[in-house]
Every structure is written in C-alpha cells, then in structure tokens.
C-alpha cells in the first residue's frame, strides 16, 4: 500500500537552469520519521526540497504525499526556509511573523482573529520566544530568528515539516530547543525532513539519512548509511578537488 507512506518519491529527476541537478531519487518515508538530508555543497539538497514543494518543475518522476500529489496535499506541509532567504529589515514583528502560519487556513479577504493570535502565542511559547513577541525580527539573534520561523511552521500544524539548513550559524541553546521540538513532533507521528550540513551530529539527530550528490548516494537507517561508508563516497569528489587545488 503506497498510501501508508507520508512521503513517497519515485524516480525523481530535476534540472536547474537547464543542467541536470538531481537524478533518480527513490525514497519512501513512513509517518513519524525524522530524516536528515546531507551532501556536499552543490549536491542538490535545496533543489530536492524545491522540487518536492513544486517550486521548480520536475523532469521526471513522482512525489506522493499520503498517496496524493503535492498540490492536493499542500495544507499538510510546512516549510522553514534558509535564514539568508529572508529580508530581516522587513517591517514585521515576531508575532506577526508567526501569524503568517495561520494564513493557509484563513480564506481570501479574511484576517487572523483573536483565537489565531492565541495559537500563535502558544507556538511562540513552545520555542521560548513569547517575551519577544513585539520585537522587529531583525533585532533577534540568528537562533532566535530560526526559532520564530519554526513557531510559524508549528502554527500551520503540518503532518510533514521541511527545514532547510535550520542550524547554520545559530547558538547551541536554540539548536537544542529546536531539536527537542522536532523530536516531540516525531513522537506525535509527524514526519520531519531536515537539510543538514554538520556531519558530526547526524547519528544523534536523525534516524534515517538521505545522502545526495547530484544523485541519490544512499538512503536508509543512519547507522547503516554511516557503516557503509556512503557518506565518504558522497564527499569524496569534493575532497579530491580540494586536494588538487592545493597541489596547484
């Protein structure tokens, strides 16, 4: 039964600016999984997320969310973008940012009501940011900013949560707070995919690992993937290029 998978990707291939960026991705993720997506720079991690979210066209393959297409299931998905894709000077405060998470469930022309504000505040509390609700977002530290965006995703009450490099340049306390929330979500049966850069923590953070380098290098249990030396294989190309550059 295909429907039992929260996320089922078959034969996914994507081009970016006319060049092939990712080839033949095949993964099936059960609900309640916490999956890390790793790979060297330029391996196509962000491209993978964008293709999954229908933001860029696929060359080939299918993405099924609980057995249906993304556009049929988009209400089930929340996305936490990379921090450097946000304009931190935008005239918006923390609470208003989290309130954006209520927009998908409000119809056109409708405004968030008192109950939506209460929900947003409750999610801010989960990430420990309720005291900052009236701050402009640019006044926060990197970790605080990331927690606010996690709170926004929590308000959406997603079944599937995608985070793109959430731990880049943030403090350890924020990272721990966010990891705890992700683990709670996982225990509640939600499915979480995290694009991650730091190899040292993958085995403590994730249960499954998807290793990418222009194609699927490996997918499976973290311990298995690590034991098979798949990660080295993915990063090997980059290392050898680096060494060559040094020789020259």
């Amino acid at each position: 039964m295909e429907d039992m998978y929260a996320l089922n990707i078959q034969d996914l291939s994507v081009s970016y600016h006319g060049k092939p960026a990712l080839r033949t991705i095949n993964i099936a993720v059960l609900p309640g999984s916490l999956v890390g997506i790793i790979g060297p720079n330029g391996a196509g991690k962000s491209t993978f997320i964008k293709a999954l979210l229908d933001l860029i066209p696929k060359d080939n393959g299918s993405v099924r969310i609980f057995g249906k297409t993304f556009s049929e299931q988009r209400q089930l998905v929340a996305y936490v973008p990379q921090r450097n894709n946000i304009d931190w000077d935008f005239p918006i405060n923390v609470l208003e940012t989290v309130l954006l998470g209520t927009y998908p469930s409000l119809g056109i022309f409708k405004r968030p009501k008192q109950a939506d504000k209460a929900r947003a505040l409750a999610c801010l509390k989960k990430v420990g940011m309720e005291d900052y609700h009236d701050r402009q977002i640019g006044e926060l530290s990197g970790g605080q900013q990331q927690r606010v965006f996690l709170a926004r995703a929590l308000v959406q009450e997603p079944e599937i949560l995608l985070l793109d490099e959430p731990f880049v340049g943030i403090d350890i306390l924020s990272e721990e707070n966010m990891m705890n929330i992700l683990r709670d979500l996982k225990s509640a049966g939600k499915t979480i995919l995290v694009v991650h850069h730091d190899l040292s923590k993958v085995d403590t953070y994730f249960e499954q690992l998807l290793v990418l380098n222009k194609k699927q290098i490996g997918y499976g249990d973290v311990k298995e993937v690590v034991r098979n030396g798949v990660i080295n294989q993915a990063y090997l190309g980059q290392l050898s290029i680096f060494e060559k550059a040094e020789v020259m």
Partner: protein
Amino acid sequence: MAFIEAVIQYGFLQKALLTSVMVGIICGIIGCFIILRGMALMGDAISHAVLPGVAISYMLGINFLIGAVLSGIITAIGIGFVSQNSRIKNDISIGIMFTAAFALGIILITLMKSSTDLYHILFGNVLAVRPSDMWITLGIGTFVLLSIFLLYKEFLVTSFDSTMAEVYGLPVRLIHYFLMTLLTLVTVASLQTVGIILVVAMLITPAATAYLLTDRLSTMLFLSAGIGTLASIAGLYFSFTYNLASGATIVLVATFFFLLAFFFSPRQGLIHKFIKKSRAETSR
C-alpha cells in the same frame, strides 16, 4: 493666507488640491509594497510604459485608462518573459522594455500632432485638472484602497516570504501582476499632478521616508500616505504661490521630508546612529 483664499475662490484649485491629495495617498500606499518587494526600478518602468497606451487611446478616441493599463501590463509581462526565458537578469530586462515602450510612446505622440501636449503628460500640470480627470482619480483611488484593504494579508505574505505563499498555494504570479495593474492605475491617476517622469518619486520617496520611521507595515502604510499627502499639499502651495512646476515642486517637498527622516529618525536616523556609536565607544 492667500493660498487658502484662492482655494476657496477658484474651482480649478479645489480640483487640483483634491486630486493631489488622492494621488499622495495612493502613491504612498502602493509605494510601500513596491519598495518592500525591491521593485523600485519596476515602478519607474511601469510608469514610463504607460505612455504608448495613452497615445494610442487618444488616437482611437477611447478612454486613456484602457490603453494605459494595457500597455503597462503588456510591458510587465514582457519584462517577466524575457528574464524568465533567457540569462538576461530582471533589471536588464526592465531597462530594455520600459525604454522601448517609452520611445514608442514619444514617436506616437509626435505623429499625432494633436493638441495633446507631450510636455504635460511627461511633467504634469495639476492646475489644469478637468472635472473628468478628478473623477477618474477618485475612482482609481477608491479601487486601489479597497484592493489593498481586502488583499492586505496576501500582499503582506507575498512581499515578505513569497516562497511560503507559493508553497501554501497562493497564486503568487497573479498577485504580482495584479499589483502591476494597481501600479499602472496609480500612474494614470498621477499623470496630471506629477507626470509620468516623476511618478516614481511619489511612489518611492514617501514610502522610504515611512520605512525609516517605523517597524510595522500597517503603520508604514498610514505614515507613507500621510507624508505623500503632506508633500502634495505643500508642493501645490509652493507651486501656486511662486509659479513653479507643480510636479517638480511636490517631488522636492517629498525629498525634503525624506532627508529629515534620514538624519533625524529616532531609530534609523543618521544622527541617532552616530550618537549610539560614539556612546558605545566612550563607554568602552
């Protein structure tokens, strides 16, 4: 004051005042979204691109609103088409398409050799506002304000985080082109007061001034509309009293407000930043 007496006495001045105030409000409000989306250049482009549409409308004897909106939207689509289907970046595409549209407009108007005065379309002549122009401006103003009020949430989320908006299913591109439509309407409404060439100042300068004064979008919209209105009224006053070109005078008053905010804004102003920096240095 002679100006107030004159306003009470002369119908043309009342119409000029009312039109300028409306233009100040709607330019200020649309301008906020234009600068927050990083589209200042696009604002300049669309306002220029209205010219051929205005010319063709005069030739065909139809309402110039129709032609203006059509040529504005066609140019906006052309800009998007070129940048999406080639390696040409958006700012380059804007530069090519709007100058082309503007050049075409100039040729068309000179071919017409009619009473339509190119100079007035380009630079505005607020003291010659006809009743029909005033009603058009009021109609456009109402439509623009209503659109922003109803779609505030959609404009906010697509301006701040368009990826999120797209992921949850908003028609982001359609909203972009709707904003471009509002922009052409605002430009048409501003033809008489500031003219095509200086519209961009009314869009950007009050909005940028407000941006330096607040951290909230809702406050920024009201401030920007207020500053635009104030600049329009003061500009009209100076224009009437000293017999200066109305559009240019209004724009210079707006620039004066911007400079005030740039130096003296309580949080973002240059002087505040300087004091904060020197305090930090002495306390070290």
